[in-house]
């Protein structure tokens, strides 16, 4: 029943480009893009509570791969290469960082983004002797929209599967208590690495698919750390441990930030920073969860009164 509803919603959304104008379509692309990133982020960070700020490192790698290879290879092959690059980087980063915990992990993933950006810049300046790149692909916004919609559907399907599967349970046990996890026979590194990699490959694809939108790409555009912060806020706002939570968080926040960046371009990052702090410290389980527990407390009080 739920599957039927989901398929109907998907089909309806697939028709959207045929009647929506360019502006709403652009907004929808943004929402889908962030919906994918937030859902993928929460797949790993929700159960483990590892706040990763590396989202844009993978997103940017995907976009850059398309920018570099789109002239030489067929588009589907380019996407495949992007996914592979994302996978390899995720495995390296995962092995290096997943033993870190708490704030060290946060800082490392933040630093990683800068490192990747510097490496790409170095490569471009010293090896290929170009910094910016043009992406000319015969893909209109509606193609990007459809690809992102398909990626979002796939991401939600994977997230759904993870929640039902042993590996999803393993990750929740690790998030609660890694010592217990290991004593129950759970292979901690393997489990974290697997889900971290799945999550990062999806982020890489999200960047790759959106690359043609920019036409002109350079490291400071596609490796913008704001993206990583936004994704964390979206996922935490909607609730990182619910299937649709991150997507539900992405919709209002994307619209809010579109509006803020258009109307308050100078104060935008301050507002973003404050929101980040507030949500990470005050509502780490999401606004929906906080609302629910508040509701539960109020109804319990009423019952007692």
């Amino acid at each position, binding site marked *: 029943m739920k599957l039927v509803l989901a398929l109907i919603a998907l089909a309806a959304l697939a028709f959207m480009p045929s009647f929506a104008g360019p502006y709403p379509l652009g907004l929808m692309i943004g929402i889908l893009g962030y919906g994918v990133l937030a859902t993928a982020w929460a797949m790993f960070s929700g159960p483990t509570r590892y706040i990763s700020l590396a989202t844009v490192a993978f997103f940017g790698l995907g976009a850059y791969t398309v920018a570099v290879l789109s002239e030489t290879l067929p588009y589907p092959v380019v996407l495949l290469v992007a996914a592979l690059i994302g996978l390899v980087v995720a495995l390296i980063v995962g092995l290096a960082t997943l033993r870190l915990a708490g704030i060290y992990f946060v800082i490392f993933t933040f630093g990683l983004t800068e490192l990747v950006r510097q490496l790409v810049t170095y490569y471009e300046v010293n090896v290929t002797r170009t910094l910016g790149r043009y992406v000319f692909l015969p893909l209109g916004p509606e193609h990007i929209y459809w690809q992102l919609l398909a990626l979002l559907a796939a991401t939600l399907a994977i997230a759904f599967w993870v929640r039902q599967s*042993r590996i999803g*349970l*393993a990750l*929740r*046990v690790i*998030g*609660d*208590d890694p*010592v*217990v*996890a*290991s*004593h*129950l*026979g*759970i*292979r*901690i590194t393997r489990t974290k690495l697997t889900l971290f990699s799945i999550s990062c490959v999806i982020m890489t694809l999200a960047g790759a698919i959106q690359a043609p939108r920019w036409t002109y790409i350079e490291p400071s555009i596609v490796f913008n750390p704001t993206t990583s912060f936004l994704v964390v806020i979206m996922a935490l706002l909607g609730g990182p441990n619910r299937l649709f939570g991150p997507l539900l968080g992405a919709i209002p926040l994307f619209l809010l930030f579109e509006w803020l960046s258009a109307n308050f371009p100078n104060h935008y990052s301050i507002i973003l920073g404050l929101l980040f702090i507030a949500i990470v410290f005050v509502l780490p389980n999401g606004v929906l969860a906080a609302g629910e527990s508040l509701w539960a407390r109020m109804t319990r009080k009423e019952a007692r009164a």
Partner: protein
Amino acid sequence: MTLLSLKGVTKRFGGLTAVNGLSFDLREGETVGLLGPNGSGKTTALNMISGYLPVSEGTIALGGDTISGLGPERIAHRGVARTFQLVRALPSLSVGENVLAALAFRREPVWGKAAESRINDLLSDVGLAGRAGQPADSLTYIDLKRMELARALASEPSLLLLDEWLAGLNPTELRAGIDLITSLRDRGITILLVEHVMDAVRALCSRCIVMNAGGKIAEGPTADVLADGEVIRAYLGEEHA
């Protein structure tokens, strides 16, 4: 048949030697008490057996194979399960999921429909029948201990390590707890029992090993060990000797 064998096992934390050259054997099916005053190294010894801490020196063997050097997940797969002195529940999981977590990652995993009935059996074995759906963080202390035991039993261990599992229970609960451990012993599970409750030790353990300041000071049949002058001094201080 010897199930567990420690030879010269030592653990140092910086300058502190928490366990010092500890050697003993457990035969299959035995319930053995590991006694000693606070800080004598009992928990550290369990931590090395379960793989939580690496040994600084010495070897631990299970069924003839060396297990010191393996991680806890490997040792768990060889049939060692434990409870913790300070209960470690998985607070964001339900009671049933706490047990499922053990079933699902055993060497022969139990999952899906088969797991559901196993969970119910395991929970009713420890007196938590019908509580599978409850959040783990809503349980009382004694029920958390029960849940932790059900989780340990879910892996069908050949060796069970209990770290002061009976501590903090009232007399009625203690009676029930001793009966529960007796039933595990009668099922043939080998148990290493760290315990301060002497009535329980007398009722459950055929043999005891006593530690003090990291070393073994006595080993033998429970009645003999508990009558030993050195043990009484270590445990209760000079005035009781």
